């Protein structure tokens, strides 16, 4: 993976030193909380319901063992011994003391990490396909382009005071595993007629109060012009995005109000006035970045006798193989998912001990690489098939081998009212109740692919709009209610969910999920996912099941 050189290292060290000075000015009372707020937000430090929350960037979700061990150390030393992975592949620590923040940044800088641009009206941490470099359906390694964007966007002088936060996702394969349609900019690698590589550029997607799917403003942008084209988009947005109303300040509102065609015209015009050579990375730098991601894989025979034998004798292992082990592009290797969704636990939470376990497994069995995906799970991208049983056992011993990827218990949930000042309702207990109800792995398997996504407020950090079942917490006169949406997905066939009916009280949510699952099992035809059945039948039978009592 990309290793920070002396320049990258100096950069994060300078940043940590700058923040140390700012925190000491604050602690000495030289600046007020009002003046300090934008400064700390530039360093990912929020003041939450109970304490400071530090949001640490994990660019394009890529970790190695040293980084993950450092995160474990920080969580153990400065927090309560656990951290929370988010849909933006950041790690949040929810119980931080202000005075410790500079020291934490120093620790992070030691391993080439930081919390820059995890907050504020800037280009946020870049997310990308978590299977980068490991999957046979990828057209190119998205990390090359993600790293180029990371560098370009870091303390960008022109784009550090945007109308609102700005999020970019990079997909690189036939299958969209980066939710590119629901970001401010979604980039999807494509091949042109001559076999050359380019990006489909989608702009103006996003969830939150007014959800939109991104519009394609360019079908094919040669990869070498990525940064100059991004500059043109950002410049149009910076100059013309609304600043009078925080709810209308995202680029999606600008694109929607101008129309995608007019927005595209303005971007092309701006781009046409720019000399791309002054912005785009030179080939040498792209080659240097590319080389840093090269992974040496041994030539192995396909398949593994060890795995086959274990599979035949151990149904639990066989289930883990079915749901948490994916094909790798190289014969004899596999991608192994690490579930942070054990029923009854908080989705996305991981203890320091668990982080150390996965760091060790990554070091020993996965070419020192570990990834975080937007579903709030981790994965080991390069595991030899022969090693899968040993990895499985270590994961199982640490409570990390729940065989539930994309199943009904693999629930995305934001921290909700338990932690977040913005939330209207709790998300974690609802996720726990649903997961416990479907805790029997055989039943979850029978139900099949069914992503549930829960947000504690309209900001939609839990991506509820793009859940096959989405759940949104709302406040009604001081009481927590939950609105259900059906039919959303962030993948290639991206769609926003539709509201099913009146919001439900907390006590009714898990039961309503159960009722909808019953409808699905009754109605489904061969091989249909929940989403397919919903698309075929429409909302009526689901609505009837959930609201029958009300009539």
């Amino acid at each position, binding site marked *: 993976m990309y290793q920070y050189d002396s320049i990258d290292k100096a950069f994060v060290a300078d940043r940590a030193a700058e923040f140390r000075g700012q925190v000491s000015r604050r602690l000495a009372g030289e600046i007020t909380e009002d003046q300090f707020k*934008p400064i700390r937000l530039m360093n990912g430090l929020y003041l939450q319901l109970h304490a400071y929350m530090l949001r640490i960037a994990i660019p394009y979700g890529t970790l190695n063992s040293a980084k993950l061990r450092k995160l474990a150390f920080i969580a153990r030393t400065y927090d309560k011994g656990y951290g929370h992975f988010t849909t933006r592949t950041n790690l949040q620590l929810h119980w931080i003391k202000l005075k410790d923040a500079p020291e934490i940044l120093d620790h992070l800088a030691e391993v080439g990490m930081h919390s820059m641009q995890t907050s504020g009206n800037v280009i946020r941490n870049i997310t990308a396909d978590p299977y980068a470099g490991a999957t046979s359906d990828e057209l190119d390694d998205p990390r090359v382009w993600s790293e180029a964007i990371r560098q370009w966007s870091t*303390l960008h002088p022109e784009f550090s005071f945007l109308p609102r936060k700005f999020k970019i996702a990079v997909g690189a394969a036939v299958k969209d595993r980066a939710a590119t349609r629901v970001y401010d900019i979604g980039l999807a690698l494509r091949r042109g007629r001559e076999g050359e590589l380019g990006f489909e550029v989608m702009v103006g997607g996003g969830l939150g109060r007014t959800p939109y799917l991104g519009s394609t403003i360019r079908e094919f942008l040669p990869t070498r012009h990525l940064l100059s084209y991004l500059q043109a988009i950002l410049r149009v947005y910076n100059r013309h995005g609304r600043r009078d109303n925080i709810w209308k300040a995202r680029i999606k509102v600008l694109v929607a109000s101008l129309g995608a065609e007019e927005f595209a015209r303005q971007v092309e015009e701006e781009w046409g006035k720019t000399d791309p050579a002054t912005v785009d990375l030179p080939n040498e730098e792209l080659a240097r970045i590319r080389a840093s991601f090269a992974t040496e894989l041994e030539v192995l025979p396909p398949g593994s006798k060890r795995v086959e034998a274990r599979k035949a004798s151990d149904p639990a292992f066989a289930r883990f193989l079915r749901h948490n082990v994916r094909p790798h592009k190289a014969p004899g290797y596999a991608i192994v998912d690490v579930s942070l969704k054990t029923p009854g636990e908080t989705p996305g939470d991981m203890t320091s001990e668990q982080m150390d376990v996965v760091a060790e497994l990554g070091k020993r069995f996965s070419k020192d690489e570990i990834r975080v995906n937007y579903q709030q799970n981790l994965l080991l991208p390069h595991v030899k098939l022969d090693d899968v049983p040993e990895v499985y056992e270590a994961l199982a011993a640490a409570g990390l081998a729940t065989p539930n990827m994309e199943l009904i218990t693999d629930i995305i949930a934001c921290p909700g009212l338990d932690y977040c000042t913005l939330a209207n309702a709790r998300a974690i207990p609802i996720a726990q109740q649903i997961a416990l109800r479907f805790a029997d792995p055989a039943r979850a398997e029978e139900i099949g692919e069914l992503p549930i996504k829960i947000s504690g407020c309209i900001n939609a950090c839990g991506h509820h709009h793009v859940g096959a079942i989405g759940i949104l917490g709302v406040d009604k006169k001081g009481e927590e209610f939950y609105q259900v949406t059906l039919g959303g997905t962030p993948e290639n066939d991206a769609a926003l969910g539709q509201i099913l009916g009146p919001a439900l009280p907390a006590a009714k949510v898990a039961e309503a999920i159960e009722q909808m699952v019953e409808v699905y099992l009754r109605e489904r035809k061969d091989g249909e996912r929940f989403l397919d059945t919903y698309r075929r039948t429409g909302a009526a039978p689901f609505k009837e099941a959930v609201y029958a009592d009300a009539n």
Partner: protein
Amino acid sequence: MPTLIKMHQGRAALANDPFTSVADDESLPPGDVIISLTRFQSEGDRLLSEGRAVGVRVEAGEEIEVLAYDLPRLAVVALAFPKFRDGRHYSNARLLRERYSFTGEVRAVGDVLREQALFMFRCGVDAFEPADGSNAEQWEAATRRYSHVYQRAADGRTPAFAERREA
């Protein structure tokens, strides 16, 4: 009169301000003035013909493009930041320097804090009226805090990728 800090060859120093900044409802004093875009459009030619140096104050919502043909005649473009969070002028500053090759003074006025110093300087702003009481020394320290930068901008600093190539 607000403090004026000017950058010269990368050094920040307190500067005398020969310009009087004049609101639209104020009568014009003699000498060099900074006036609004509206006022410039109606009175600019006359003021310039009187041999004065003229600066134009551009509000955050105004398009810098309308000044394109007048730029060679202007001594100062003052970019007015209504709130430090309003970042439109960072784009305007770059356009002034990089697209229109404006060589006069680009001055940041309004809600200007030292936390913005590096960003402004890199976009081509070379004069500042800080609203947070910061002095020239603090301002310069803020512009020099990072030993490397990742992107090309209007300050001509060598970005990381070019440093690597030279190394």
